[in-house]
């Protein structure tokens, strides 16, 4: 998924238990595309160097430190709604 700003692609994830999350598609470590990573539980492993990023908070799993912006998501009758860019911040999204 590509956002309004072409430099800021957005990755949308669906986990095994059907939760949907959206994050800026840039690992806080070296900018790797999280959308290409392997999803495990409620986290994704970046394909470049294996950092594990939590999908609900955007935070890297210890011992790594860093955070990526998360985007509020709502699923409504099969459609995925993402919050507009100005509403994006590193906070937990409203319940879908």
């Amino acid at each position, binding site marked *: *998924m*590509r*956002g*309004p*700003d072409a430099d800021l*692609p957005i990755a*949308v994830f669906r986990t*095994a*238990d059907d939760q949907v999350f959206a994050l800026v598609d840039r690992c806080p470590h*070296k*900018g*790797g*595309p999280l959308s*290409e*990573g*392997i*999803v*495990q*539980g409620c986290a994704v*492993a970046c*394909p*470049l160097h*294996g950092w*594990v990023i939590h999908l609900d908070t955007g935070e890297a799993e210890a011992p790594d430190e860093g955070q990526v912006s998360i985007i509020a998501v709502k699923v409504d009758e099969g459609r995925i709604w*993402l919050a507009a*860019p100005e509403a994006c911040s590193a906070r937990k999204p409203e319940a879908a």
Partner: protein
Amino acid sequence: MTPARNGKERLVVVGNGMAAMRTVEELLTRSPERYDITVIGAEPHPNYNRIMLSSVLAGEKTVDEVVINPRGWYDENGVTLLTGNPVTAIDRVARTVSLAGVGDISYDRLLLGTGSKPLAPPIPGLQLTGVHAFRDIADVDAMIAASERHRRAVVIGGGLLGLEAAWGLKRRGMSVAVVHLMSTLMERQLDATAGELLQRDLDSRGIAFFTDGQTEEILGNDKAEGVLLADGRQIEADLVVLAIGIRPNIDLARAAGLDVNRGLLVGDDMRTSDPNIYAVGECIEHNGQVFGLVAPIWEQAKVCGARLAGNDEAVYVPPPIFTSLKITGVDVFSAGALAAADEADEEITLHDARRGIYKKVILRDDRVVGSVLYGHVVDGPWYVQLMREKTDVSAFRDQLVFGRAFAERAGAPVSKIDIAAMPDAEQVCDCNGVSKGRICEAIRAKGLTTLDAVRAHTKASASCGSCTAKVEAILAHLGGAVAHRADPAMCKCTDHGHDAVRHAIRERELRTIAAVREALGWRTPDGCQKCRPALNYFLLCAWPETYRDDAQSRFVNERVHANIQKDGTFSVVPRMWGGLTNPRELRAIADVAEKYAIPTVKVTGGQRIDLLGVKKEQLPDVWGDLNKAGLVSGHAYAKGLRTVKTCVGSEWCRFGTQDSTGLGVKIEKMCWGSWTPHKVKLAVSGCPRNCAEATIKDIGVVCVEAGYDVVVGGNGGVEVRVTDHLVRLSTEAEVLEHVGAFLQLYREEARYLERTAPWVARVGIDYVHERVVADADNRRALHERFLMSQRMVQSDPWAERAAGAEAHEYRALAEVG
């Protein structure tokens, strides 16, 4: 004399080293309440493992990692530790020791473990800055500091300690020379042949040797500038390390009037000439012998601890001593006699100069009395066991020198380690002084199930590794089926190792990732980035005809069939069979590079062409265009067959003995598309000049006049490993069958992400030889299974995707805004 607290007897221990503290531990396990214990150490550190200082110097361990008992241990065991204040005198009449700056401390029993001092040669220049012994943490700190400021080091002494010092300094980037008085290295532990092999190996690692070298003087005004030898040779140096030996430190004992000779004299009961004073370790002399190696010292600690605990029967009998050298990648072992002492003794030797392997076993009256091993040392502990148990070896002496596996097949008693019968106090790990009891306690208390976990918690088997089999047997004994042989847990989702999981998949016919997780009790619902690709591969390998590949368990490169780069773009490498190409292919590559504005075109190390910087959404179109010229995926992104590198061979080269290019193409046609535990690179060289570098590949073929040498398990990566020779063959068909069989054995038995080099090193080339070469039926079966699974995978993934398969992988969900 002040009265003891709590009415306990007072034990004062002078020395906080390995021998004294081991004795205290032995005492505490037998009689924890008997004494009020005070330990006095001259060094400002808790008790650490002096043997491992070479690993600290080499940068392989930290000081913390070699501490045996941290300060907390002393508190927990009610032992008072006083460090940094040396004992200045013993008053045997008043039963006190005087401590600099503290005063007198009373004892009922005194234990001396004052260790040894480094020997210094009687030469000028010892006082210069930059001259160090190699004895304690302070020495190691000084050597490490010197290696950061200076470039040139000379080590005086080519024994065990000197060579470990030289290697450590080399690892720290210094240029190192070793001066040794004798003509061969480690002459106390090795015979001349093994000493020469060792020198050759270390020489090739860049250490210079000056044997038959007597040091005359250390040159310099204030600081060391070089070393002058008696024969006039001169070596420049900023750091000079003295490692010519040790002598017992008996100053205190002598001043106290105890009987001394070379060392402090003790009897079989570890008591000195004063019945209230005991002594252990490098400071003592027993039956004319002094000590520097750890095994006899542990035995002394055991006897002394028992005596202090009130056991009047314990008697010291020197055990067989053995030596191994802690230089990464150099395997040396020796025990007992180095050579036949007289005509009644016999020597059996095996010497393979090319592979750098030398084995010698010395027999007396059909019993092993000594052994020297170089290059292949796994059987060292077995020979020690035969020595200790005085086993009659006449029934299997033909096989003796080939090692335990061969000898046991030829009728040697199969020695099982009897864990149930082993007393808790028995020392299992000699390097770190860990008893069976301590290992059992850690396994039970912490629920350990793997060798690595036991190593982490107890340090047993974490140093030289010669006790690994015993530690594993203890694990198996306590953990039953949970424990498995040196098979580390796959990831944090499970305690099962790769081998155990592969075994369960076959035996219990588990056919999906979910079924494996369910059956083996995974802790996470859907695994992690480590176990998912591994399980996907294991299942694919076990059930090639029915397993459905799980794209979500593939690393991105294998999922999209291209290599992700640091900026998120991809690289595209078409296959060039055996490194061959033609104008049509080259034209297609040029056209594609221009049409899609691909920024970088590079020739790879595997004789192909890499197109770098392709955007993901362009991939299917790029592949479509390449397909039209006959180019297919090179699988440069896969844990699978990468390349078969070749030289031009007999078709063009004046030295070529066989058609190496043609054979390379045939091998590549057989193997392409296969999934393997890790990437696999092959090469075929047309003559022993080996221009295709076949001897650092996973599988190499080196053509010779008489046929083909197949070599395996090489690697040119982080840790360079030269291949082991597998077999010489006379036809191409035989080569194809052996290559296919070897690959299949690797596919079926290696751990995921284990290259062939560590795999072959782990299982041993003898094992591979047995399965692939010696057992022809097994080879054919392996080869057939390989070809069968190849039939399932040999279709070009690029063509499928250029035609529209998996299209969702290559486009964004949506463009918004």
